[in-house]
């Protein structure tokens, strides 16, 4: 078990880290410009689709899903998970340096812990090697086919 990642695969993981948090931030900013949506003003949702921040946010979130699934096709779920968690760190740093919000010592500690977690996992192999069609996957597949 010793899968080393290629440069393009590291780029996919960086995309996983960045796209979700930046996409959420763009959606949040766009919806703030559009205004509060309620049952009597559902037309605002249509209007939101023409807001450049909302459009960019949706594109980035589609990019997140595509890169996340690509990463899962060559890496373990427990390898990719800390990369998705790193999105929380990006959001916190964006709020500190872009929106100039205050970060408490608790949040800085949280950022440090998640960075350490990414470091732990990144130093190890990305994929567990075992025979194809393992029993666990077969059980889930038969369950999924029955849905």
């Amino acid at each position, binding site marked *: *078990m010793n899968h080393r990642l290629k440069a*393009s695969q590291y780029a996919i993981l960086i995309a996983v880290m960045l796209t979700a948090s930046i996409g959420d931030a763009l959606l949040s900013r766009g919806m703030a410009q559009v205004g509060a949506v309620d049952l009597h003003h559902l037309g605002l949702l249509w209007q939101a689709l023409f807001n450049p921040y909302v459009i960019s946010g949706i594109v980035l979130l589609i990019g997140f899903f595509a890169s996340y*699934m*690509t990463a*899962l*096709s*060559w890496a*373990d*779920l*427990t*390898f990719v*998970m*800390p990369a998705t*968690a790193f999105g*929380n*760190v990006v959001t*916190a740093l964006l709020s500190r340096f872009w929106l100039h919000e205050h970060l*408490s010592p*608790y*949040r800085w*500690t*949280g*950022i*440090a*812990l*998640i960075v*350490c*977690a*990414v470091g*732990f*996992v990144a*130093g*190890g*192999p990305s994929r*567990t090697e*075992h025979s194809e069609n*393992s029993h*666990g*996957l077969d*059980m*889930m*597949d038969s*369950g*999924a*086919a029955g*849905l």
Partner: protein
Amino acid sequence: MTASTSILQTWTAIGGVAALAILGEVLIAGAMRRLGDLDLVRERSGLPGAIRAVLSSPMFLAGALCMALNFFGMLFALSIVDLSLAIPAIASLTYIGNAIAAKIFLHENVDRRRWLAVLFVSIGVVLLSH
């Protein structure tokens, strides 16, 4: 949390949403593992072929259904549980549950390094919400 929401209701909602997220992520991860490296699939059959391969996997579709139910479950949970409790609790339970489910169902080698990462991420997410 509203005054009428009991501790049992609160943690049932949090546990239910986390369980759907875990089921969805493990099913999607299992489907992707079965399909193999998507970069290679795209090289062989182009982007439409790769999208077709993903969308024709029952395991992926079941996972996507769970993620959709997770989204609506999250909306319900947020209507009865405080945001400051719901988000970090669901995120932490999901990370820990994913690691356990990945070990049991995907047979991933979750060594000490990965368990430590799961623990750090779970505590880190809780601290970030403060």
